[in-house]
């Protein structure tokens, strides 16, 4: 690790922020069209973030500030490890488990800060967010176990590279459609899109964890949201859609996956949190097990018992 790596890492974070924020703006427009509105301009999201950052804000104690910094820091650090079209700012750090667990540092920071505000709405929101995490993460991780067993690697760039040997047929979403389907449903939960948005639930629990934030704290959390979206969609694109031989290919796939997720979100209603857990543990988990067993059994020559 030298200075170049760190500069590249800052570059990656800035790029991801600008790209995803623009994409969010465009998707706000798409959402509006689905709902037959005109919608805001595409750069509205930038305006919102910068306006929030420059306003005065309140604090409820040191943990309230520290949590926000830890959250944004953790998410930014995670983002620096995600390979984009084969490019890594810190080579060799793109292990899937490191990324998913480091992502949790950011989440924990945000949860801590929200609870530190002393507002019960925030605590309820965090409790729902963590419960949702228990629902959507496990089917996804099980699918990943199957794939790691198959390809003998847990590195995202290796996953992407293995799929770039041939045409679209080598993509994991085509080769392992059940697993790919599970991952897409999990992505819907990871991004907090409907029907799995119960932890934000604006009209119900006053935006949950976000309830107390304003000013620069809120601005930083907006940035955090854009960065974590980039990480999660980036994971799916790298693992199931062949990453990208070129940056353009990567970004095109990224735009398609994200926009599809958003469009699905606009036509569905919200699950209650226990309904969400039951759903994930019935359908995606069963499918994940089926996919996993297919991979393990075929790989060991059709023999599991001997």
């Amino acid at each position, binding site marked *: 690790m030298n200075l170049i790596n*760190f500069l590249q*890492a*800052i570059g990656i974070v800035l790029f991801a922020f600008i790209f995803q924020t623009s994409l969010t703006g465009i998707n706000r427009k798409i959402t509006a069209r689905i709902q037959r509105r005109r919608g805001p301009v595409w750069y509205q999201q930038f305006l919102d973030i910068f306006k929030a950052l*420059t306003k*005065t804000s*309140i*604090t*409820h*104690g040191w*943990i309230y500030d520290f949590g926000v*910094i*830890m959250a*944004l*820091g*953790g*998410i*930014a*650090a*995670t983002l620096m490890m995600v390979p984009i079209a084969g490019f890594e700012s810190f080579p060799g*750090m793109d*292990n899937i*488990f490191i990324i998913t*667990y*480091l992502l*949790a*540092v950011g*989440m924990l920071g945000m949860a*801590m800060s929200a*609870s*530190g*505000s*002393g507002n*019960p*709405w925030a*605590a*309820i929101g965090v*409790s729902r967010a963590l*419960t949702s*995490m*228990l629902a959507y*993460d496990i089917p996804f991780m*099980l699918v*990943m*176990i199957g794939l*790691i*067993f198959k390809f*003998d690697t*847990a*590195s995202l760039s290796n996953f992407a590279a293995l799929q770039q040997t041939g045409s679209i047929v080598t993509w994991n979403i085509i080769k392992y459609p059940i697993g790919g389907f599970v991952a897409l449903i999990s992505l819907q939960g990871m991004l907090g899109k409907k029907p799995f948005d119960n932890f934000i639930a604006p009209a119900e629990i*006053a935006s949950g964890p976000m309830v107390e934030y304003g*000013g*620069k704290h809120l601005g930083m959390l907006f*940035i955090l949201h854009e960065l974590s979206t980039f990480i999660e969609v980036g994971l799916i694109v790298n693992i199931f859609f062949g990453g990208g031989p070129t940056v353009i290919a990567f970004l095109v796939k990224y735009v398609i996956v994200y926009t599809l997720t958003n469009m699905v979100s606009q036509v569905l209603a919200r699950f*209650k949190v*226990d309904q969400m857990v*039951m759903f994930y543990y019935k359908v995606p988990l069963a499918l994940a097990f089926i996919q996993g067993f297919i*991979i*393990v059994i075929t790989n060991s020559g059709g023999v*599991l*018992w001997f």
Partner: protein
Amino acid sequence: MDLSLMAILLLIGSFITYFVSRSNKKVGSYLTILITLFALMYVYILKNNIGLTYELFGVITFKVTYLGWYFSIIMATVYFSAAFFNPFWMEKFLYPSQYNLMYLLSFLGTIGLFFSNDLLTIFIFWEITVWTSTFIIPLGKSRKAGVMYFVISSIGSMGLLFTLMLMYNKVGTLEISKVFNMLANEPKLASIVFVMFILSGLTKMGIFPFHIWLPQAHGNAPNTFSPVLSGGLVKMGGFITFLSVGVFPAYEAFKDGLHIAGIPILIYIMMLLGAVSIIVGTLMAIKSEDAKKLLAYSSVANGGYILIGILLADQLGLAGGMMHMLNHAFASAASFLAIAVVAYKTNTTKISELGGMIHKMPVTYTVFLISIISLAGIPPMGGFVSKWLIIQALADKGLLLIAFAAFFGSIGSFLYVFRPLSAVFLGQVAERNENLTPPSNMMRVPMIFLAGLVLYFGVLPRGVLEIIGKIQASVGITPVELNGQAIMAVNGNLDALKVFVIFGFGFVLALLLFLAFKKPRKVDLMDTYTSAEFIYTKELYHYAHDFYAPFERLYGNHPSVEKWADQISYKVKEVGDLVNKVFFNFNPSLSILWITVLIVIIYLGGVII
């Protein structure tokens, strides 16, 4: 440096402590700190004596091995750190001098166990620890907890005793390596010995269905002893488990039997028990209303990880399991100590009665935060490195069911570690806790020490893994591969130091962004958005009770081992009552009847034979 000398010194020291405590309990409790510190240093120096054997009283034989040294260092560190809390609890105990004696004797028992060279020594020291800790637990909140602990421990003791007698009959010697090597060619005998021997490990580690003693004992033991129970004594189970797959040639003995995904069926079943422990421990921890019980259930879950890791007995899994033992010992001791501080100041460990402790004791909060991040296996703490190793091993072998439990426990731990963090330390401060004084520095020292270790092993795991590598090499397993600070696994590498540096870099960036904009205005905790309600009672404004209510409802009607055990104890009591009524009646004529019947039987028996 003589190990037998140390054992004798510890024994003498504990009795001196007892008599000193009789006259002055404060001085006695300080002696426990000094003696454990002495033992910690003594054990550390023993590293130079690897391979030497010692004898005591002609029956007890010790051998200094890397395995024993590793376990003893963990144990001595935990005992030493928890001893700092003893002076504060001397006023609260009914029998303080007895506590000090038992504290040191149980420590002696663990150290002796880890250096045992034969099965008899294992049994003797095992029993010393069980008996002494049985007398400490009732000094806390509940006598029943002590009984439960003893009953479940006895199941393990019986397993151990059975192995000992069986092997002495068969082989004629009790030396561990000789006894176990002989079993490699006798799969049938090996499977009996394997099950009986590992049984003692399972009971001690609190593996399902023996997990019921942990929440009872950890939750009700004195606040100073809970860290030792969870961080220390449970690890004796890990030691036994290691012996039963590392030294005991389990994989070799069962190589012709049924295998599942390359694992012999008997070992696979044990792993499944570990997986069930992870799930049960996690679910029960999520719904615990008491902070100490919550941590106890988390010990059940983490015991599952340790069991699975060690039973894999390969390059990665074993290293992960062994390292998880160390990480869990320190993290769980630190978190129990943090809760002990809270309990010392507020006299309660019920989550819903606390809140906002961060404003009264920020250091304790930071320690608790670091240790529970490690318990949950989140970087950059030690727990992450070891869980990563275990999950890599599971992915490599394609053990889907076990991997499911591992992930469930991992994500589920975010839920249960966040609960005390949020409801005990964050949120509103209750009126009655407004005037708490900060804890004394003597309490802070061991907590900061343990939290520092947790962080250190998360950033620089090489030192520990090198020792584990030596342990692996000593039992013929390929040592875990290291390259600088990086761990080289089959499916990818983990450089914990780099992860830490990158995380720190991200943190600095976020900090700069935070500082670049206007300074925020400080407002009171009650000055929040309330949906236009007016609330002036702080307790009402603290979300702590039924934290995960929607999720808990999903498994509210779960079957429970506790109820089943209660039913069994009820039946046993009924049978006992019947026996009492029929044979030991107050009515003398009934006794005369039985005596007559007995004489007749004996007489007839004599005639017939």
